[in-house]
């Protein structure tokens, strides 16, 4: 769960001409990213539907003794079919990561926009509170919160969402600051349009570029964070099938029956690489109107 805001910081651009997505998909790197992400997402979404038709087992049925080579990828720590667990275990990770990202975006985006728009003491308070949250070590926060509230899905989502919020707030704030000095905002203010309406109708559309980049970046980190916490044993409740939990459960057999670890690790790796490639291309597309034109 690293906390890096680079290198997408370069991408803070106010102006967002139409066609951001088009510029994105014109890049080869983005195409690879979308393909990688797509494969894993498809696997995660279709996996549960394919069971037990594809493997002959549901994800909680026993296929044999633990850590045996039965079936395509052997059995896990309880003798369940690794492939079945794998197919059934991706969707939750994706959903939790997406929800955490969404929560972080909403919290961070709102506070960032409000801070920039209101300015003055509201800005000061929000940004100082942000600094406090940033200084509180993410993992300490997660460890404490999960120990207090118990390892459950919603706790994971909230904890990760909250740790994302201050970073998103920073980015949103600096993007918003640049937009609100524009004439059309002044004009809207003069017509006494309600503040929330200005924020939603005029500011938000003009900061989608940096926000999209942030979204991609945070999604990558969310996936890593959910998986890391499960790896530390702070993830889902058994007997849920979940990629992170699988790694934790089967880690002891890494040397002898590695598939229970390798499959989910591989899927997580492909997924995060994919989302990172997309994010990187997104940053480029958002920063430069001409991206992709020559390719």
């Amino acid at each position, binding site marked *: 769960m690293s906390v890096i805001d680079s290198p997408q910081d370069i991408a803070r651009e106010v102006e967002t001409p139409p066609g951001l997505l088009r510029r994105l998909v014109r890049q080869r790197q983005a195409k690879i990213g979308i393909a990688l992400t797509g494969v894993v997402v498809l696997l995660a979404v279709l996996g549960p539907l394919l069971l037990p038709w594809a493997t002959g087992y549901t994800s909680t049925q026993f296929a044999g003794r633990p850590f045996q080579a039965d079936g395509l990828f052997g059995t896990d720590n309880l003798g369940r079919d690794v492939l079945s667990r794998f197919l059934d275990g991706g969707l939750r990770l994706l959903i939790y990561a997406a929800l955490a990202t969404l929560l972080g975006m909403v919290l961070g985006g709102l506070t960032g926009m409000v801070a920039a728009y209101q300015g003055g003491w509201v800005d000061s308070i929000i940004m100082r509170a942000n600094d406090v949250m940033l200084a509180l070590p993410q993992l*300490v926060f997660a460890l404490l919160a999960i120990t207090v509230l118990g390892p459950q899905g919603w706790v994971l989502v909230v904890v990760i969402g909250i740790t994302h919020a201050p970073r998103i707030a920073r980015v949103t704030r600096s993007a918003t600051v640049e937009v609100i000095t524009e004439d059309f905002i002044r004009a809207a203010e003069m017509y006494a349009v309600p503040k929330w309406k200005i924020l939603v109708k005029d500011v938000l559309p003009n900061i989608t570029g940096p926000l999209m980049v942030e979204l991609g970046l945070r999604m990558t980190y969310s996936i890593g964070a959910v998986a*890391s916490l499960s790896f530390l044993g702070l993830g889902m409740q058994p007997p849920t099938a979940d990629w992170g939990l699988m790694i934790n459960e089967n880690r002891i057999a890494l040397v002898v029956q590695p598939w229970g670890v390798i499959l989910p690790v591989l899927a*997580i790796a492909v997924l995060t690489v994919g989302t990172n*490639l997309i994010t990187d291309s997104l940053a480029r597309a958002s920063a430069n109107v001409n991206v992709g034109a020559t390719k």
Partner: protein
Amino acid sequence: MPIILRRLATSVLILLAVSVLVFVATLLLPGDPAQAILGQQATPERLAALREQMNLNDPVLQRYFSWLGGLFVGDLGISAASGGPVSALLGERIGASLVLLVAASLISLPVGFLVGTYSALRRGRTGDHVTTGVSLVLAALPEFVIGIALITLFSTTVFPILPSVTMAPPGEAVWNYPLQLVLPTLTLVLVVTPYITRMMRATMLEVLDSGYVEMARLKGVPERQVILRHALPHALSPVAQVVAIQLAWMAGGVVVVEFLFRYPGIGQALVDAVANRDVQVVQALSILIAAVYIMVNLLADMVGILTNPKLRTGGTR
């Protein structure tokens, strides 16, 4: 310089706020720390005595201030689990983590600078594409994924040549066994270097496109000198920020790496302490990690302010 003083004051306030948060969070931990220490053998009398000894019966506010007061004089309290002072318990751990962090920094900083510069100079060519691609992939991987991959490769299956766990006999320091440091250090290096490389490359590109580099070239300064004398120094100061963030991250984020390699550092101590409800240790470590983060950021800020005259007058971050 007033702006630096103001930053300093803010940092202290932030640290205070963090201390309140940490204190409240540890209060909420389920289970009784006294019970956690004594375990099942606990008799009610021993529990009561220990609670008294740990000041668990005092009002919350009083406990907070006595703890905070202790922090200023270096008294971190008594570890519930070991019965000894927290500072003694953590001293060795902090040393071990520092060794890991310093080793990782000493490798990843120069490597990041070099590879980033190389990549920038080769912009658009194969060398650039390869390094950009590799760093993009590595940057995306969670640290335990990198760690597990390294263990699989170098410790257990393909080339069983390196130890996968850290163990030193009692009384001996971890650095007496350099071979055991290889994999944890390498994991950290692989996690951190991509960010430095990418930032270095981006900054370097900006600098190379700037007027003064162009000017130097036009004046006929040899290319090697253009890069070493003109471009590199200008690129370093923006990179300092990223480096600072990376260092701060490592201080808090080594937990997973230490957990994976059984490395006797602060990360492992923290995980242990939370599990054992060793509240004093959790508090001390959280504050320590937060302080490191704040200090490193402050330093980076100052470097930024001092090297950039425009910022000395203040303005947005």
